[in-house]
């Protein structure tokens, strides 16, 4: 039986759904809702993942991840004859936000990229473009935080290209996908984050990528419609780049197939 290790790095600013994705993936694995992927064993502490599933079960969004978080999803998976050790450290979005704002590498992230087998790049479908004025906000002085999300993502990926000569497969995760309604994740990226879409298309060898829509909660908990009675792992889903609905394991399977 072939065995492998895969370490993935999470690239996403605050409130882009990184922890929610990990919790939903863990829920799918534990409850055998992850298609071809089977959970063989957990390697590290899973308390934050279990607590997250409990929150989803109560129709509560997750608590934000603290800057100094040591949480991670570390599991051994089986896919057919292949075993895989998957390690995905959770990351606070604030450190990435600070890194992009200050244009200075976060040493932890820099270290994680060296041995990463791929990266999950998070964008929130429900986030309002920070450059769009609303109310009195047109008086707010410009700061880097007002740059559109795709500009910030491209800025980050350019920095990644500077320090990593090897290819880095990227799964673009459009979180809160249940808010989008129509179209495919690939279309969403082209329309809502066009600079990032163009940039990724220009680096097919160094940044091979695919775009997924992820609804980790399965709906918006602030509305009655979002509070269905299914278990969290039954509500959560992934939309493939072509919009076909599938399991939370899909981005991991894409990494496995994209990695030689």
């Amino acid at each position, binding site marked *: 039986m072939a065995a492998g290790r895969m370490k993935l790095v999470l690239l996403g600013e605050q*409130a882009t759904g990184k922890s929610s994705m990990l919790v939903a993936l863990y829920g799918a694995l534990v409850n055998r809702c992850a298609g071809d992927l089977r959970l063989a064993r957990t390697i590290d502490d899973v308390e934050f993942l279990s607590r997250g599933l409990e929150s989803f079960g109560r129709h*509560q969004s997750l608590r934000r991840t*603290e800057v100094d978080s040591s949480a991670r999803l570390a599991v051994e998976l089986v896919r057919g004859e292949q075993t895989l050790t998957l390690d995905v450290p959770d990351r*606070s979005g*604030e*450190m990435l936000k600070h890194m992009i*704002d*200050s244009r*200075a590498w976060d040493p932890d992230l820099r270290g994680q990229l060296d041995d990463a087998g791929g990266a999950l790049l998070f964008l929130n479908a429900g986030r309002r473009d*920070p450059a769009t004025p609303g109310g009195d906000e047109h008086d707010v002085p410009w700061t880097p935080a007002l740059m559109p999300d795709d500009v910030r993502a491209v800025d980050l990926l350019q920095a990644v290209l500077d320090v990593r000569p090897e290819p880095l497969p990227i799964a673009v995760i459009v979180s809160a996908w249940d808010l989008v309604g129509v179209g495919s994740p690939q279309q969403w990226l082209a329309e809502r984050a066009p600079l990032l879409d163009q940039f990724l298309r220009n680096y097919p060898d160094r940044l091979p990528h695919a775009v997924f829509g992820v609804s980790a909660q399965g709906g918006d908990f602030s509305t009655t419609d979002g509070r269905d009675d299914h278990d969290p792992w039954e509500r959560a889903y992934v939309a493939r780049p072509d919009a076909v609905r599938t399991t939370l394991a899909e981005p991991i399977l894409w990494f496995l197939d994209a990695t030689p």
Partner: protein
Amino acid sequence: VTAFVDQLLFGYRNGHELIAGSRTLSASEQRELLPHVDASLESEDERDLIGISLPSLGYVLARIWPAPELPRRGAVWTHALVVGLAELRARGLHSLLRLLRRPSGDELDAYSAPLPWPDAAPDRLAGPAAALAPTLVWAALGEPDGPRAVICKQGEERHAEHALIALLDALPPFARPALSFRTRARARLEGSPYRVQVAPGLAGRSEESDRAVLDARRPPATPPPRWTALLDESPAASRLRNALARRVDSDTESLARVSTILESITAGAPAAGAELAERALAAELPPPWSPATLDALARALEEAPPPLLPTALLEAVLAGPLGVDPERRADVGEVVGARHVEPREGGDQAGEGGER
């Protein structure tokens, strides 16, 4: 002249970030500070206290509270005081705890100016704080590879705050920046940047948790070193604090070196006799002592077999690589010999009688 202390307020806006402050922060200062002013608090009455020296900023004393009124679940408020290392060495921190306060309403302007340094005497340790103190001292000043997490009863981590501040203030000024601590709901055994963590629980898995923690809820499996009584109200502990406080100036930041000296002072030497020896040593080698001198002293103390009598201590030190003028060694020995009184049974009392 009134001294002032800088303050910073962090909360959730576009992420957890600086909301107000009496000073600005550079990008590198923010990157260094952020992990210490954020928390994942598990209950609405939890609050963490953090003390740590950061190279770019100075010593940071901060408290974190839950902020359920802010828009993101799990958001927190953090009020941080930034203390210059010179102030830390000269004043200690005992009066600063009362400056830490959670914002309520919109009065954020109150966090935009430096705060006058309160003029207050140290609080006397009592009740649970006094009971926790020896274990905290043990964790802070014990072996560098020894336990750094103290497990206490639920709710007692708040009492530990006063003991931690008292411990920091009892250290020699040069050693204060090296004492970092955090009270929290669950201590982390891996990757913690703090010298001491105090918590009612542990986070994560660890196969070494038995060796990595001191459990203040139960009697210790092995007798604690005598110097763990450093914060007691007893005369002996007071003498110990005085002896420590006289080590006034050095660039070294080694708590291990301090604990070696403490151990040597208390292991076999009558406290008063040790003071006598120390005075004689100070006469020969007036402070401030350089790091090299402290190194040599610590080495000499480690090599001397216990019980260590003051004369033997001095001889060991003077015979060591301290660069003491050989012609003056005899003078120092004579002074010590004339003033030193061998202890009777009962140790400390005999030493005290001899000195007086």
